[in-house]
C-alpha cells in the first residue's frame, strides 16, 4: 500500500468521525438546552428530561405504527404531545414543591424520572423497537471522499435553525422577556407584572419540544429505541449544560457539541478506552467543577 492510499483511508475515517461527532453533538445540544432553561428558571435539575426525550420517540413511533399517520404528522404530533407532557410534569411534580426545601424538589424530579422510565418499560415493553426511516432522510450525498445520508446534514442544520428561533423567542418576544425576568428573580418579576407561572410553563414546553425533536432525530439516526434510552443521554446532557455554563442556552449548545464530538473522537482515536465512553462526560464534569465551576460561558 502506497503512502498516498493510507492517508486517504485515514482522512475518510476522520471525516466520517467528524460527521458522526457533529450529529451526536447536535442531538446532545438539543437535549442540553432543555436542562439549562429549566435550571436557569427554577434552579432545579429536571431529572425527568431524559425520560421526556425517550417518551417522545415512542409517541412518534406509535403514531406511525398504530395510528398509521403519515410520518410528518406523527412527528409534529409527537412534538406537541411531548411539550404538553413537560408542562404537566411541572404542574404536578415541581410546582407544589416550589417553597419546599431544595432536596424535596430534587427527590421529586428523581421520582418522576424513575416513574416514567419504568412506566415506559411496563407500557412499551423492554424489547427495543425499530424507528421508522422515511426515505427523505436516507438520500445519500457524496461529500468529497465520504458518503453520508441526508440525515447527517439535516440534524445540525435543523439544530442551528432551532437555536436561532429560540434566541429570537428569548430576546425579541414578550414571553421571552418574561422568562428572562423570572430567571432573575421571581418576586421582582411578579412586581413587574410578569406571570411567573406561565413563564415557567412555557420554559418547560419549549425545552420538552426541543427534547422531542432531538428524540425523533435520535430515533432516525440510531434506529433503535427502548425505555431506558433516556437515562444516559439525560445525565450526559445535563453535564453538557453545566459544562457550557448552566443557565446559558448558547453554552448548553456549545457543551452539547463538545461532549458529542469528544465522545466520538475518544472512541475513534483511543479504541482501547472505548469502554470508558460513558464515563467521559463525568470526567469532564468533575474536571470542570474543580477548575471552573461556572462553566465555559459562565452563569447567565
Amino acid at each position: 500500500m502506497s503512502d498516498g492510499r493510507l492517508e486517504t483511508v485515514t482522512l475518510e475515517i476522520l471525516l466520517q468521525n467528524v460527521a458522526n461527532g457533529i450529529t451526536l453533538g447536535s442531538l446532545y445540544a438539543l437535549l442540553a438546552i432543555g436542562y439549562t432553561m429549566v435550571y436557569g428558571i427554577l434552579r432545579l435539575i429536571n431529572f425527568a428530561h431524559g425520560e421526556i426525550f425517550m417518551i417522545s420517540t415512542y409517541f412518534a413511533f406509535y403514531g406511525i405504527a398504530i395510528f398509521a399517520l403519515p410520518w410528518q404528522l406523527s412527528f409534529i404530533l409527537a412534538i406537541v404531545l411531548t411539550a404538553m407532557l413537560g408542562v404537566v410534569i411541572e404542574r404536578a411534580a415541581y410546582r407544589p414543591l416550589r417553597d419546599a426545601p431544595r432536596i424535596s424538589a430534587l427527590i421529586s424530579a428523581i421520582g418522576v424520572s424513575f416513574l416514567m422510565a419504568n412506566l415506559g418499560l411496563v407500557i412499551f415493553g423492554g424489547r427495543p423497537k425499530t424507528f421508522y426511516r422515511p426515505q427523505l432522510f436516507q438520500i445519500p450525498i457524496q461529500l468529497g471522499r465520504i458518503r453520508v445520508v441526508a440525515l447527517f446534514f439535516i440534524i445540525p442544520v435543523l439544530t442551528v435553525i432551532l437555536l436561532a428561533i429560540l434566541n429570537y423567542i428569548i430576546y425579541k418576544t414578550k414571553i421571552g422577556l418574561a422568562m428572562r425576568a423570572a430567571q432573575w428573580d421571581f418576586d421582582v418579576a411578579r412586581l413587574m407584572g410578569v406571570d411567573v407561572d406561565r413563564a415557567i410553563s412555557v420554559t418547560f414546553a419549549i425545552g420538552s419540544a426541543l427534547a422531542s425533536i432531538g428524540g425523533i432525530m435520535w430515533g432516525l439516526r440510531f434506529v433503535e429505541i427502548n425505555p431506558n434510552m433516556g437515562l444516559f443521554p439525560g445525565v450526559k446532557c445535563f453535564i453538557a449544560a453545566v459544562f457550557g455554563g448552566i443557565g446559558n442556552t448558547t453554552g448548553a449548545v456549545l457543551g452539547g457539541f463538545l461532549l458529542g464530538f469528544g465522545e466520538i473522537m475518544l472512541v475513534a482515536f483511543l479504541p482501547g478506552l472505548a469502554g470508558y465512553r460513558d464515563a467521559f462526560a463525568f470526567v469532564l464534569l468533575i474536571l470542570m467543577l474543580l477548575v471552573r465551576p461556572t462553566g465555559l460561558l459562565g452563569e447567565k
Partner: protein
Amino acid sequence: MTGNRSNNFVRKAGIALALLIAFYLCLFWVQTGWDVYKVRILNLSAIYIGITLGLNLCNGFAGQFSLGIAGFMAVGAYTTALLTMSPQTKAAVFFIDPLIWPLNSIQWGFLPALLMAGLVSGLVGFAVGAPAIRFRDDYLGITTLGFAEIIRVVFTNTRTITNGALGLKGIPPHTDLYWSWTFALVCVLLMVRLTNSSYGRALKAIRDDEVAAEAMGVNLFYHKCLAFVISAMMAGVGGGLLGNLITTIDPNMFRFPLTFTVLMMAVLGGLGSITGSVIAATLVTVAMEVLRVLEEPRVILGIFLPGIPGMRMVVFSIALMVVILFYPKGFMGDRELGLDSFRNLAARFRRTFLRKQV
C-alpha cells in the same frame, strides 16, 4: 446519690444484656426454623437497614444530597468478594484475564474482609467527598452520581481486578442472620450515639444553616467529610454482606436503580429519623419480594395473568412521589421511637385498661 447512679447503670446494663441475648436467641430460632426464602428476606432487610442508615446520615442528618451510594456498595462488595473467595474459585472465574497478585492467592476470613471493605469504601468516600462537598445540593447530587458511574465503568473495564462485565461468581455464602443483624444493630447504635452527640448536632446545624454553623465555629469540611466517609463505610460493609449473600455480583447491579431504592427507603422512613429508616428498609425489602408477584406470570382463579416486568418499580416510584408531595417528612419525619414513646404508651395502657392512677 452515687449508689443510686451506679445501681441505675447496672440495671440498664442488665436489661440491655438480657435484650441482646433474647435477640440472638430469636435469630437462632429463625435461622434454624424458618424457610430459606423468609430467611433471605430477613437477611436483605438487615443489610438494607444498615445501608439506608448510611444514606440517611449523609443526606438526612447532614443535609448533603449524595447520589453515589451504589458506588460505595460496589466497592465494598468487590473488596469482600475478592478477599473471601478461594484461590481455586478465583482462577476458575477469572478465565479470560487472570486476577492480579496478591489477590489471586489470598483468602481472608469474613470479619477481616468486611472490615477491609469498610476501610476501602471509607477511603474512596473521602476521595469522592473531599472535592465534592463544596458544591450545592443539585451539583453535589450529579457529582456523586457521576463518581458512582465512574466507579462502575472502571469496574467494568479493569478485568484483571474485577473480571469486568463478567462479574464474580462463587462468592462464599458467609452472610447469615447473625452477621447481617449484628451489622444492622451496630449501625443503629452508631447512628444513635453519633446523632445524639455534639458532633451529630453539628451535622444537623450544617443541614439547617451552613453559614450560621460555620459562624459558630463548626468546620464545614471536617464535618461534611465525616458524614460522607462514615456513610460510605456503612454502605461498603453492607455491600460486602450483600455480595456474600447472593454469591454473584457484577458491575451492572450497582447502577442508579440501586441508589434509587436506598434513597426511597430513606425518604419513606423520614430523612432524619433512625427508626424511620429501620422500619422503611424492612417494609420496602419485604414489599420488593412480595410485589414480585406482579412481575411473574401467575394463574389466579383459573385466569392466566402474564407478568409485567418493571411494575414493582412503578409502584415504588408512585409511592415515592406520593410521599414527597404529600408527606415530605416521610413516615417518621425526624421523630424517633424512643424509650419515652414506650413509657408514654405504657402509661396510657395502664390508665385505660387497668384503671390505675398514673
